[in-house]
């Protein structure tokens, strides 16, 4: 059934359908509507879960960690500074192999203070050992929430998952959303039954000490789990497709790439605008294409390589920057192509930071740059307003 609701509402309903046992969250804009809606669902008796009110995001993640270790299905959501505050617990959750699912309502990091969208918050948790998947629209974000539990709880994976959706641009937008039918979700997502959990009758220790004889091996296994997810994510996506008739494909989605000469890669909701731009350019006879990067960790090295094989040039949009170097996706895409002799020329674009809008004409300009092999100035900051700066790069 399709309904027109706010993105945050769609996530709350998806969480309800996933039947978590414990929800712990601390409100922070633009995540607020999601957790408000969930607490209301619980208060109204529509969702049988325990909502733990906490004093910070660090505590929210700690509660989820503890609850998950007891075998509970857990959920939380946060953004920006809240995600940063969770930082150390994120590594613990991943290392303890706890299948927590979290929505990240992507937002910029301070300073300067910004409540608006970019991807710096989740990108900055790249190495936490969590799987990160980015949604293009609210139906995908809702569907991913259900798939995330299947991925996280899969015995081959056992790793927590972040479902990343653009703050405001998705969370606060009303649009038609395909609602999840409860009976189908129940078939697709059985209750969580972990092999190991905290149990007084069968005592075990979670997150214990590992001396130099063991630490490396635990890290290796954590890494292997993320690598294994490269096969599991598409598999669960197609299983989901069979049940719900909506298949998002694998780690990447290729849009009009078959005979494309020039392709732009992006993540998140801006991909919608990018696809529309590709259609416009195609109408003008330009063989443009788009790649939506869905899974950022694990990074789809092979998929990117084969999708870009034979292309002239590729552009990569980063709504983040690793200060002192370049956009995170740009680095990863180039690294993926390192062993290919005929790798396309890669252009990195940093744009859309702190909520700056990316209209179609900006994508057109990016395509112009890669088609005409233009030098990208201003360290790749593509939508820089140089008028308000004293300093200017030459």
């Amino acid at each position, binding site marked *: 059934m399709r309904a*027109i609701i706010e993105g945050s509402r769609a996530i709350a309903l998806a969480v309800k359908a996933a039947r978590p046992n414990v929800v712990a969250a601390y409100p922070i804009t633009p995540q607020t509507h999601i957790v408000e809606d969930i607490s209301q669902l619980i208060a109204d008796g529509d969702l049988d879960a325990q909502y733990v009110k906490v004093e910070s995001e660090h505590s929210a993640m700690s509660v989820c960690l503890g609850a998950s270790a007891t075998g509970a299905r857990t959920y939380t959501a946060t953004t920006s500074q809240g995600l940063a505050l969770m930082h150390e617990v994120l590594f613990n959750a991943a290392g303890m192999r706890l299948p927590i699912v979290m929505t990240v309502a992507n937002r910029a990091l301070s300073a300067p203070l910004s409540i608006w969208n970019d991807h710096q918050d989740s990108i900055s948790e790249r190495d936490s050992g969590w799987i990160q998947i980015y949604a293009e629209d609210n139906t995908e974000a809702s569907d991913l929430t259900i798939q995330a539990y299947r991925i996280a709880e899969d015995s081959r994976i056992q790793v927590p998952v972040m479902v990343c959706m653009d703050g405001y*641009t998705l969370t606060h937008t009303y649009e038609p959303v395909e609602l999840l039918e409860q009976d189908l979700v129940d078939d697709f997502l059985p209750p969580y039954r972990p092999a190991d959990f905290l149990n007084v009758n069968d005592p075990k220790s979670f997150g214990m000490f590992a001396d130099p004889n063991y630490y490396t091996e635990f890290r290796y296994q954590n890494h292997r789990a993320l690598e294994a997810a490269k096969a599991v994510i598409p598999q669960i996506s197609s299983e989901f497709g069979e049940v719900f008739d909506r298949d998002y494909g694998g780690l990447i989605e290729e849009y009009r790439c078959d005979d494309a000469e020039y392709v732009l890669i992006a993540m998140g909701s801006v991909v919608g605008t990018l696809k529309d731009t590709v259609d416009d350019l195609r109408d003008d006879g330009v063989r443009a294409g788009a790649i939506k990067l869905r899974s950022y960790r694990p990074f789809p090295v092979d998929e990117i390589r084969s999708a870009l094989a034979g292309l002239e040039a590729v552009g990569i949009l980063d709504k983040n920057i690793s200060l002192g170097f370049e956009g995170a996706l740009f680095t990863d895409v180039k690294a993926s192509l390192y062993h290919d002799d005929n790798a396309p020329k890669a252009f990195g674009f940093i744009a859309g930071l702190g909520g700056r809008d990316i209209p179609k004409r900006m994508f057109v300009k990016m395509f112009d740059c890669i088609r005409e092999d233009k030098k990208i100035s201003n360290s790749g900051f593509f939508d820089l307003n140089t008028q308000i700066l004293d300093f200017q790069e030459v």
Partner: protein
Amino acid sequence: MKEVRIHGRGGQGSVTAAELLAVAAFEDGKYSQAFPFFGVERRGAPVTAFTRLSDKKIRLRSQIYEPDYVIVQDATLISAVDVAAGLKPEGMVIVNSEKSAEETGLDAGIEVRTIDATGIALEIIGRPIVNTTLLGAFAGATGEISIESIKRSVLARFPGKVGELNVRAAEKAYQIMAATERTPHAKPGAREKRETHEIHEKIGTAAIGKPGTSEVTKTGDWRVFYPEFDMEQCTRCGKCLENCPDAAIIKRTLSGKEADAARKKAEELEKAGKINKAAVKKAPIRYELDPTYCKGCGICANECPIKGIKMKLEEK
């Protein structure tokens, strides 16, 4: 695809209007999308919200730069915001105003239709909440959406009496607009596109701001209501002044003849038994409004312990 941009002030329900319009379009079997220009929401500050309507799934996520329609909830915005920026040549601007299209001050080249939504809302709803009324006007003026769907979407959001009244106001505005023909444009031509960067002032290196910016922001422009002080009953407690978020209440002590006159008037009131002796002494102390900065939030009226402040509708 049709794109609608709504201009209003914080507290006027512009975002709700965008959402209700999207819901109504969905009811009509269309795809739609509604989102606000995500600002820091402050009552009275200029607000923009967007709605897209289409027969196909909408993927576009950017703001709306070349709208087919613009709805202006508050005509006072026209001097502050370029509401018609980027309007398509065949586009239309619907303005809440009792004035005629020519009197709004918008370019002669664009189709402007006015409706006294505030008047309709005050008459039917009893409050100057114009968003639903303007949605009715939009349905009548553009035909992009059915009035039935507008009504259903309003009722779904505001069940009961409130919804009924809003529906009646929307219906009235619809009838008025539907009865008047669209006028062909005097001299159609594409409007200038909005610049992406409207800020030209130089910035420093660190996120460090200069003080005193609140002086530059004339929050008085945002006002829909203004507070009226009952200086006869006022106990001079100062609560209003302490709580005003914009320091828009000024305490002034009268001197000389003015003070004598105030005292004399207070003595008369004391004789009539309306105030006590202590109040007579304080009579020269006045609490006054600074209209440049009062944004009409009503916090002072809420805080006044004797309910001596009444919020009045600003005559514009």
